[in-house]
């Protein structure tokens, strides 16, 4: 039985990688730690359950990372995807600390693997968890239990009572019953608000109803909103999120990685009005997959359709839901509920614009179009070899960028510019400090681990005093 009258050294709100990295670090530093995880045990781990790798700096090859990946290149990559909307000091600190993130996780029982087939060729920059994020989550919980950390499942933190930048206690719903948890320090690692459709509607209106939530349905943003309402400083654009091209037939929540479609660079993509809207072959997919969710979110009814033919079918990973298949473009259009005449015309115009070239699926080749208002810069081949295939696409949202402002010790900043006395944050709830827009594969887990460890360390210092 949990003793709710006890004063804990550290309360960790959330149950994913960022939360457990913090909890484990604090417990190892000698603090008594309690973790409040909103999900039941089987669904624990937040979005970490669906992850696969983390991006780590390394000066020389390791057993799971090839070649080297140094600070400047890492920083350049981040700068490019964020378009400069980042905090350089905080980002560089995180990049430098990422070198030690795989080692920390390995000490927590996480097993890494050399990357294989379905990995978007990231083995140089990203370390892959054997079995994926749920295996990582299992290892972290196992370590936490061994350290004597108290873990409460089915426990939603609903309110943190903050007075003058100081957290006094947390009001929680514990298995449906109201309780309070008192702690000397609080670490908020409760994720973004992407699963809160009402909140998304505030910025996106009815379009929000068509967004698929790729990860945990427990990311309701309750702690985030509560903290912002209690005088914590806000960071990040509330309308921004990380989103990919998902299969339109995927579940509205918790569909995870397998719902994403990698067919875009090898297709042409049209919206419901049967118009192409973006260069499908602008760059290699690992650098472009994260913009397509947003592109589709801006189309009518948040829908798009990737059209391809039998020639391209084996250039991308198989999809869970089989594509629509037809012997003519017109038939395919009918199956996809698109105007057949118009789709035939769009495909014909595209085919006429395709220039001769040599196709290379994995690198920027010279197959391109000429003369189209919206070009396809690479991998452009004529779509003329039946059967033809059509994948319906919808935006799949990974996480939102709105967060709480933190300093380089993971300490939450108050609206008046002063650091909080005892509140820290790690993970998606503060990722917006570094990610103003865009995304780098595996960087979310890096932010979670790095800031989780710092938050755990700092909170333990307060807890023990």
């Amino acid at each position: 039985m949990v003793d709710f009258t006890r004063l804990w050294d550290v309360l960790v709100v959330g149950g994913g990688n960022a939360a457990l990295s913090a909890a484990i670090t604090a417990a190892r530093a000698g603090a008594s730690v309690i973790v409040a995880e909103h999900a039941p045990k089987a669904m624990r781990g937040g979005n970490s359950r669906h992850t696969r790798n983390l991006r780590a700096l390394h000066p020389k090859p390791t057993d799971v990372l090839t070649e080297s990946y140094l600070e400047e290149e890492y920083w350049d990559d981040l700068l490019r995807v964020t378009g400069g909307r980042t905090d350089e000091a905080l980002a560089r600190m995180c990049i430098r600390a990422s070198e030690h993130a795989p080692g920390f996780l390995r000490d927590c029982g996480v097993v890494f693997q050399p990357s294989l087939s379905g990995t978007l060729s990231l083995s140089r920059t990203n370390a892959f968890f054997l079995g994926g994020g749920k295996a990582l989550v299992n290892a972290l919980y196992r370590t936490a239990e061994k350290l004597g950390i108290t873990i409460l499942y089915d426990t939603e933190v609903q309110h943190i009572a903050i007075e003058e930048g100081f957290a006094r206690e947390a009001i929680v719903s514990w298995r449906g019953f109201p309780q309070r948890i008192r702690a000397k320090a609080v670490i908020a690692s409760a994720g973004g608000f992407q699963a809160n459709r009402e909140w998304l509607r505030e910025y996106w209106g009815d379009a929000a109803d068509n967004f698929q939530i790729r990860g945990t349905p427990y990311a309701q943003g309750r702690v985030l909103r509560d903290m912002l309402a209690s005088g914590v400083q806000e960071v990040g654009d509330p309308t921004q999120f990380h989103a990919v091209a998902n299969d339109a037939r995927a579940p509205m929540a918790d569909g995870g990685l397998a719902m994403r479609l990698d067919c875009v660079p090898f297709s042409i993509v049209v919206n419901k009005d049967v118009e192409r809207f973006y260069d499908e072959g602008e760059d290699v997919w690992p650098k472009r997959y994260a913009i397509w969710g947003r592109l589709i979110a801006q189309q009518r009814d948040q829908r798009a359709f990737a059209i391809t033919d039998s020639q391209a079918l084996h250039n991308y990973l198989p999809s869970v839901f089989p594509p629509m298949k037809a012997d003519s473009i017109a038939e395919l259009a009918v199956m996809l509920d698109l105007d057949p005449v118009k789709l035939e015309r769009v495909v014909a115009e595209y085919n006429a614009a395709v220039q001769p070239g040599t196709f290379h699926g994995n690198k920027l080749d010279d197959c391109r179009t000429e003369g189209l208002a919206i070009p396809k810069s690479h991998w452009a081949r004529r779509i003329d070899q039946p059967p033809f295939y059509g994948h319906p696409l919808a935006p799949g949202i990974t996480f939102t960028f709105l967060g709480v402002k933190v300093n380089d010790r993971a300490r939450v900043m108050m609206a008046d510019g002063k650091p909080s006395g005892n509140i820290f944050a790690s993970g998606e709830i503060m990722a917006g400090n570094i990610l103003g827009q865009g995304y780098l594969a595996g960087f979310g887990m890096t932010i979670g681990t790095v800031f989780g460890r710092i938050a755990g360390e700092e909170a333990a210092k307060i807890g023990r005093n």
Partner: protein
Amino acid sequence: MEGINRPPAPASATGPESEATIEARRQMEICNACRYCEGYCAVFPAMTLRREFSTGDLTHLANLCHSCKGCYHACQYAPPHPFGINIPQTFATIRAESYAEYAWPQGMGRAFERNGTLVSLAAFLSVTLVLLLTMALQDPAILYTAQTGTGAFFRVIPYWLMVGMASLSFGYALFAMGMGAVRYWRGTAPGAGQKPITVAPVAEAAVDILTLRNLGGGGHGCNDLDDSFAQARRHLHHAMFYGFMMCFAATSVGAFYHHVMGWKSPHAFFSLPVQLGTWGGVLLCIGTAGLLWVKTVTDPGPVAKRLLGGEYAMLALLFLISVTGLLLLAIRHTGAMGVMLAIHLGLVLAFFLVMPYSKMVHGVYRGLALLRNAQEKRK
């Protein structure tokens, strides 16, 4: 099209496929788009070689699965997730169906339906039979008095009977399993374009079998009991496997001594057959008891409960064979030897009789699946 929140029914689900096969296809199509488990065992790299999964493909993949359960505990889509991915359980069911389908003669496939009962009943009946035969054929006085010196065992059970029944039953088991192997190999063939079997894949499959590499989880072990990693099942299985092989070697060496060298049993404790049999028996005891324990306490989530009966019965039978064998060694100079010998041989007879219709066939099909996998990788 929109609003369909579950994976689609497979295109070729119209044939006489089992529910488990249809379910396995649904699951494999999700796994093939996810691929997080590719580092765990041979199943997932073999899966990525395919886009569509025929019945034969699924049977092959199911028999390639060692039921290490790594993929279940790591699965973001495991129950209670609506996708309900549970590869170890689904594949175990398909394996059992393939044992029935490829059994020889075909009608004997039904023996897999209530396998636990069948194995237990066979054990009970053959022990009874051997005891009765011994009583009927021999002077009961011999059965209850200490027999020592050359040919002591054969004074209890005549040589012709012992060897006759053993060769008949074991010979039949080998033949039936051989026929099963041929039918399985044809039934799971991926179609035209198969390369001939060469030395390299055979060697790889042999190493896989001898080391149980696929129960190593890539070095750190498997989820024997829960989401923690251990090598217990791998070690216990191979204690059993090598123990069994040593017992088999003991019998072979004994036969060689008898027929070629003219040395009759019982042999001295430090003789080769007795040493092989003793330590083989000890390993077999430890392995089977350990596996029974693992099976009892493991997380039931990824387990196909319907098949447990046959598995428990076979492990128990092997355990009893090894225990009675060791007891026989301990009391072979006393008046209890006769009855113990009859019980031991009765259990061995039962084992030979049920072998082609029991969990034991998994060795044949697993071996063939590993061979096919090693062959496929080289294409």
